């Protein structure tokens, strides 16, 4: 339990460094620091920034896995640094920025394209029918249908881990498709067809080859590939295949 948080141990953080402003290529820096087993990898990064090298640059805000700021590659796997505990790490912890997005500085990548892709799928509830006086009714079963998809925190881990996205940067990517799912299957939405059309184009669902990297890297354990498959099925039904 938390008491085991007391035993300090030395850990080596190997961190990939790069600054658009100063460097032409990246390098690896190593920091040796004391950590407790129940501390987060994020605590380690904070400690390095605070006491060893103030120029180390990474994003974070909530500190507990809900804001989506701190996704990065930790020992080869995309994870949230605020949800990854030291006790689950080997003595050497390798930290890199998310792949496939342009690096701005150290662990910070440019996420503009990631967010823009999202805009393309009409990511908002559309329903022009005059609303009832009270809430629109939605059964628990109907809500269950979108329950997983609404937990997405837009961390970018999935899209960054997708080999299709690496080769086709126009591909919408798993998280935008998941966003489309969230509205297409919301019983209150009325723009399903339009959205379905958008995600079944040349850079949409059909590019997904069910490689499952996204599922493995999602910190919210969303079965993204399952959701994409269901959208493919729906698109087929509507004759929206390529």
């Amino acid at each position, binding site marked *: *339990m*938390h008491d*085991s*948080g007391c035993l300090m141990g030395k850990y080596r953080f190997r961190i990939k460094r790069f*600054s*658009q*402003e*100063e460097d032409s290529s990246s390098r690896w820096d190593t920091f040796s620091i004391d950590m407790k087993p*129940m501390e*987060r990898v994020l605590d380690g990064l904070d400690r390095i*920034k*605070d*006491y060893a*090298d*103030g*120029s180390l*640059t*990474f994003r974070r*805000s*909530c*500190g*507990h*896995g*809900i*804001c*989506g*700021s701190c996704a990065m590659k930790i020992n080869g796997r995309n994870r949230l640094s605020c*949800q990854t*505990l030291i006790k689950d790490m080997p003595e050497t912890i390798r930290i890199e920025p998310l792949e496939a997005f342009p690096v*701005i*500085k150290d662990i*910070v990548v*440019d*996420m503009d394209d990631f*967010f823009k892709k999202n*805009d393309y799928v009409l*990511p*908002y*509830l*559309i*329903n022009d029918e005059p*609303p009832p*006086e*009270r*809430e*629109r*009714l*939605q*059964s*628990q079963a*109907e*809500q269950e249908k*979108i329950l997983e998809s*609404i*937990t997405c*925190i*837009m961390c970018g881990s999935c899209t960054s881990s997708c080999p299709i996205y690496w080769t086709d940067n126009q591909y919408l990517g798993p998280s935008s498709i998941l966003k489309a799912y969230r509205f297409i299957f*919301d019983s*209150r*939405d009325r723009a399903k067809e339009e959205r379905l059309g958008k995600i079944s184009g040349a850079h949409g669902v059909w590019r997904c080859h069910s490689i499952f990297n996204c599922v493995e890297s999602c910190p919210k354990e969303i079965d993204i590939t399952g959701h994409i498959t269901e959208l493919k099925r729906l698109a087929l039904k509507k004759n929206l295949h390529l």
Partner: protein
Amino acid sequence: MRHQFDTVIICSGLAGLRAALEASNGGNVAVLSKLYPTRSHSTTAQGGIGAALGNEEPDKPEWHFYDTVKGSDFLGDQDAIEIMCEDAIRAIIELEHLGVPFSRTPEGRIAQRYFGGHTRDFGVAPVRRACYSADRTGHAIVFALYEQCQLKGVKFFPEFFVLDIVIENTRCHGVITLEISTGEFHIFSSKATLIASGGYGRVFKTTSNAYASTGDCLSILFNRVIPLEDMEFFQFHPTGLYGIGILITEGARGEGGILINGKGERFMERYAPTIKDLAPRDMVCRAILTEIREGRGIDGKDYIYLDLRHIPKKTLQERLPEISTFCKIYMGIDPSEQPIPVIPTAHYTMGGIPTDIDGRVFMDEKGSVVNGLFAAGECACVSVHGANRLGCNSLLDTVVFGRRAGNAIRDEIKEIEYGRIRNNELEKSRMLIDSILTSDGKEKIANIRTDLQDRMMEHCSVFREEKNLKGLIDSIGILKERTEDIGLKDKTRKFNTELIDAIELKHMLTLSEVIASSALERKESRGAHYREDHPERDDTIWMKHTLAFKTDKGIEFRYKPVKITRFKSEERRY
């Protein structure tokens, strides 16, 4: 670079987003934030948003009104509270129509649960008033509002850090910002500027607040001689995870969780016989710390247990999935099998920028307003929370008063010209940045920050006393001097988060001094402000709001009356 917008909104938490939707009906809107919009602190809100929908059992806005006044320890302004509670039902239904995926009852209506201080029939028994989306309510609402803002064409400027808010001759002209990724200055002149920059819980060591909650804009305004109201009232939440402060929502007690001490007693029965574990937060925090002080912590240590073991596993899975995950990840325990070690954690700022019921910012105790300047959400003080906020009333505050501010802006910008920001204003910001970047000082940001957070926790959290507060104020003065000697490792311009940390630290110091000074000044105990040397509430002298002004001679205090329309002050028992 220079920009011009009808409305500029600082920050994309719930208050900012809700206001943006409204203001966009009257002209173009820019929303700036130091984070991406979906990363705002509001996404962390777990438990729920309050409204007397009566979906689960009879409830009335009137009871909500009473509970909020009593929860506020009678310091809340009743005109504003009444507006909020009356508007709550409409506000929640509207959120539902905008797409928020609220959890549902078997009939398909918005589900509701118990929360601290929510009662029926003016205090008779707990009532289910908290509307929720599992324990991800803030996340669900932020996404829905952000999405609707996109539909409305609101222009977002993510990762823009506000350096200054330009106010000249009782008129706000706009803001000066730093684009974090490039290090360039961007000047936004506007007809109306809304501050919705959230709280500053980071000034304390143990906190549930995000790294971004440093209160920059309040400090900027204070330095621009806008007073800050009721800053002595800072809420601690009873159940932060022991050691790290991550929040376990009051919804956990709403679903039946209880607090137990080292002797296995359900001690809240002694402190609040009627509603027990669902008493307001100020009372529960004091009860917990009293148990600990008297040696009844777990194994005599400095924490107690939140026990959820008797709650059906299915309920935990469906209604409290996130906090169950937090317990597993951060404590290595399964809350259905083991009790959760908890301690009070810094949570919410009741005080802030004084405003009227439409978000207009006051510049004195007489009610003069700054033209073109508005504030809403946690950074503002309307005041609906008075000396102690009730759970679920903050999210409600953001959407009700965010919307009202947005409406007022929409109407007023028709008559206002664009603000004009002169180059010498920019020079001030440029000098600030240059002086930090070029300093070869020896102090480290983290040392000063940790020192501040430790001292604030020690002397200005749940229990306070004159001697300690005086000592604290002196040490803040010393810490302020030490900040002048900060030297950065990172001298670059692009994405310099060390630079941001340095500026945030200055703001945290400014606010800490205001908090501690206001706490020293108020010689009574009310709501979240508890003075061990003045343990009683004193309505004859202190039934009034504090306004702290910056002057050449230091902080000066003035006061304004509490608006009492319906409920007279009474002894606060639960």
